[in-house]
């Protein structure tokens, strides 16, 4: 048994991403861990080892999973919904798009994607009717079908998250809201995605990348799984450019949010981590450079709410 673990460990060492693998592998690869030095990274304002960061982030989201959506609404006063809507509008998916939503936990982006694709399809049909084009039999029958067995055009969304509690909440939400087709849930690590190369049209990560231990690896994985012509979209908290708003934002972040966290979710520390992690995340230009380093082209960013959040977009060309 030890020999076979050692053999697998050796094989793992030969793979390019062994550093991060060892940082997350526990019982399975514990024998090989001592061979590579662990780096240090940040967890909020603390400095922790890379292994610790992964575990701590896991515990944060495990504990907040059930109250995640309520907390999002209270902390951002519902504005996070607008941010996510804007992300979808920027994505502008057409029916037939394959989306990979990483760190998608409770499914906000996935559900919006499904709604968008469905309404695009209906819009297309209406346009055709208006211009007196003849619809094909397929289109006519689909427009009568209330329950569609598949999403229009064969669109598909895979929600991937490292935390199964968040995915469980997401799956339950999907069942309540009636989303079932074209939607899949997978537990996976953003630094090591369980998908083949050139599979997806769009890769999104909304409010997740700052929690990843090795952001550059997550970006490389994003590049790998996208099809040529695919789009990378990242919605994340960023640096505020206006000094006055920045002061108000800091005040709100550090005085109000952890208190809300304690009252609503009973967890001060997790929300303290949240606001600290926002401050530690690189600013717009620096993150843009990181995205370019992974190989993406035409990388742009767009500030929302004076830079409180930013959407970074890049293409694999």
């Amino acid at each position, binding site marked *: 048994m030890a020999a076979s673990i050692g053999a697998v460990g050796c094989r793992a060492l030969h793979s390019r991403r062994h550093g991060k693998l060892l940082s997350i592998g526990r019982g*399975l690869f514990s024998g090989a861990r001592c061979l590579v030095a662990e780096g240090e990274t940040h967890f909020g304002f603390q400095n922790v080892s890379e292994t610790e960061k992964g575990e701590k982030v896991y515990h944060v989201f495990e504990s907040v999973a059930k109250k995640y959506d309520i907390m999002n609404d209270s902390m951002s006063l519902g504005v996070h919904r607008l941010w996510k809507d804007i992300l979808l509008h920027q994505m502008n998916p057409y029916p037939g798009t394959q989306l990979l939503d990483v760190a998608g936990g409770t499914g906000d982006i996935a559900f919006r994607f499904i709604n968008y694709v469905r309404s695009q399809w209906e819009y297309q049909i209406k346009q055709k009717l208006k211009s007196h084009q003849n619809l094909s039999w397929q289109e006519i029958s689909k427009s009568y079908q209330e*329950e569609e067995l598949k999403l229009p055009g064969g669109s598909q969304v895979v929600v991937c998250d490292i935390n199964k509690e968040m995915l469980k909440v997401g*799956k339950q939400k999907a069942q309540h809201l009636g989303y079932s087709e074209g939607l899949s849930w997978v537990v996976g*690590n953003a630094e090591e995605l369980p998908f083949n*190369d050139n*599979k997806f049209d769009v890769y999104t990560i909304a409010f997740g990348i700052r929690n990843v231990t090795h952001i550059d690896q997550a970006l490389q994985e994003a590049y790998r799984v996208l099809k040529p012509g695919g789009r990378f979209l990242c919605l994340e908290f960023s640096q505020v450019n206006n000094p006055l708003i920045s002061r108000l934002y800091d005040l709100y972040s550090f005085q109000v949010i952890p208190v809300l966290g304690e009252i609503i979710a009973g967890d001060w520390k997790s929300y303290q981590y949240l606001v600290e992690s926002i401050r530690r995340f690189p600013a717009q230009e620096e993150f843009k450079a990181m995205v370019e380093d992974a190989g993406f082209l035409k990388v742009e960013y767009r500030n929302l709410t004076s830079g409180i959040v930013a959407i970074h977009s890049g293409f694999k060309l």
Partner: protein
Amino acid sequence: MLSGELPKLANRKCAAAAANRPFPGAAPRHSSDGQEGQEQPKAWDPALLEFLVCPLSKKPLRYEASTNELINKELGIAYPIIDGIPNMIPQAARMIDRKAQDEEPKQT
């Protein structure tokens, strides 16, 4: 005469309503997979196999129905599927001890 026709209309409406029901519960009668929309949240969607590969070796996986796992024969590991959600984190994977030992003489 009128009273005779009304029950017929009512029956037709009920039948039509049942047929057009946009409820996922209507679908299971046709699917033979055992994948039901609502009653079994633990159902596994085999369509995911097209996308999923082992995160370590990037090789395709085989679904093992008896243990409800995804197996990578080459590395001899199995990823569990919990509540219909496959867990593709390497630390969650289980070593397949006996199979790995049996296949060692065959592998290089």
